[in-house]
């Protein structure tokens, strides 16, 4: 007999990118008191891998619904840019373009925003000077 798929046995891998088990996520909700997909993500790393959570975060939401109720499951996922993974060298090569004035930045590579083949996208955050790093480092 097949199990109903709501049941997530402890030894099931819930987030494949980060290798997070369903039991770990359940523990984060039931024992550590996480009350949103964002909190579970921070404590367990579920959803932090290269797929950016597209595969597993709805499973986290289901665990939240089961263990913490619909309110916890309804908290929206706080999506972090970039929407699509961008290789470091490619991002680095954009430095000169990103200092361009308003509306002329081809932002699709950075943000995963598709605006046509090489369209120009206006984003409120693209027009700032890139600034300089602070002296202190972590």
């Amino acid at each position, binding site marked *: 007999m097949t199990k109903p798929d709501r049941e997530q046995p402890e030894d099931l891998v819930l987030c494949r990118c980060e290798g997070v088990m369903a039991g770990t996520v359940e523990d984060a909700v039931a024992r550590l008191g996480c009350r949103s997909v964002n909190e579970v993500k921070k*404590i367990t790393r579920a959803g932090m891998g290269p797929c950016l959570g597209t595969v597993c975060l709805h499973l986290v939401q289901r665990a939240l619904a089961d263990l913490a109720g619909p309110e916890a499951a309804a908290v929206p996922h706080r999506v972090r840019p*970039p929407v699509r*993974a961008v290789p*470091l*060298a490619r991002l*680095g090569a954009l430095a000169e373009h990103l200092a361009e004035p308003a509306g002329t*930045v081809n932002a699709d590579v950075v943000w995963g925003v598709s605006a046509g083949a090489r369209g120009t996208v206006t984003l409120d*955050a693209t027009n700032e000077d890139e600034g300089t*790093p602070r*002296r202190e480092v972590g």
Partner: protein
Amino acid sequence: MRSADVLVVGAGVIGASIAYNLARDGADVLLADRAQPPAGSTASGSSAGGVRQQGRVAPEIPLAIESIAMWAGLADELGMDIHYHCHGMTFCVDDPRLLPALHARVARERAAGLEIRVVEADALRRMLPCVSPRIVAGSYCPTDGHADPMRTTRAFSLAAERHRARVLWDCDVRGFRRDGDRITGAEASAGPLACRTLVLTAGAATHRIAARGSVALPMLREGFLQMMVTAPCPPMLRQVLAWVGHGISLKQAPSGGFVIGGGWPGRGDVDRYETHLIPGAMAKSAGTTVNLVPALAGVPVVRAWIGIESYARDE
């Protein structure tokens, strides 16, 4: 009205650890935070997690050395894996003109009791094969390291609760209650809170909250700092790296992803803990990373964020 001997406002790593230590020593503690930490954009929820002694201002060095002894036993003490790794940190230098300053700092920090030394050319390449050949020397402190800031912050508040501290999440502290010039509690979204002692550890909001109680903390201002993390890679870097003059801190987290910080700026609004990335800064930071560790060129960035830090005006 809820009341406690000590009311701690703000449950970032600082407030949570103060609440834990007081509760462990028997104090009656109430820990309140406007969110459930480690919350987005707070310093503890967005930190690079470096546990560093070197490169600090002189008065901090003895404190930093003492804290390393505490870090060693912290996971056991708090009953949670905080992913603390003590494999050293190297500040890299590519410009020979910076070498005298590097040697002078290392000498100063050694005199203060820190275990640190200058590593040059071949020895540096043997120690850090992934680092670009343009790096000519570095200062290596074997007892620097890194930890997971979000787990550490949460571990402190959970341990505080085990020692009977009470916590109030989603409790926005808006002002103080006073009796003459004594602060006797706080006005909060969860209702009034009474206390004998109030500890204000609200990170970047600290001076704003203090101002509502007519307490001026003119030494504070806020900064918006960018972080990025890459997709997981095979293990290649155990140390934490910094590159003098280039704005980068780099470490490989236990999950395999490279955590990239270094103080590139973002923008935002402290009152709402709202932050925005500056793509140009992300690009500069990515380019710097590849220049320091060329093997990372093809590795994708999977996430970027901004954290809000508060500073003494003179840093």
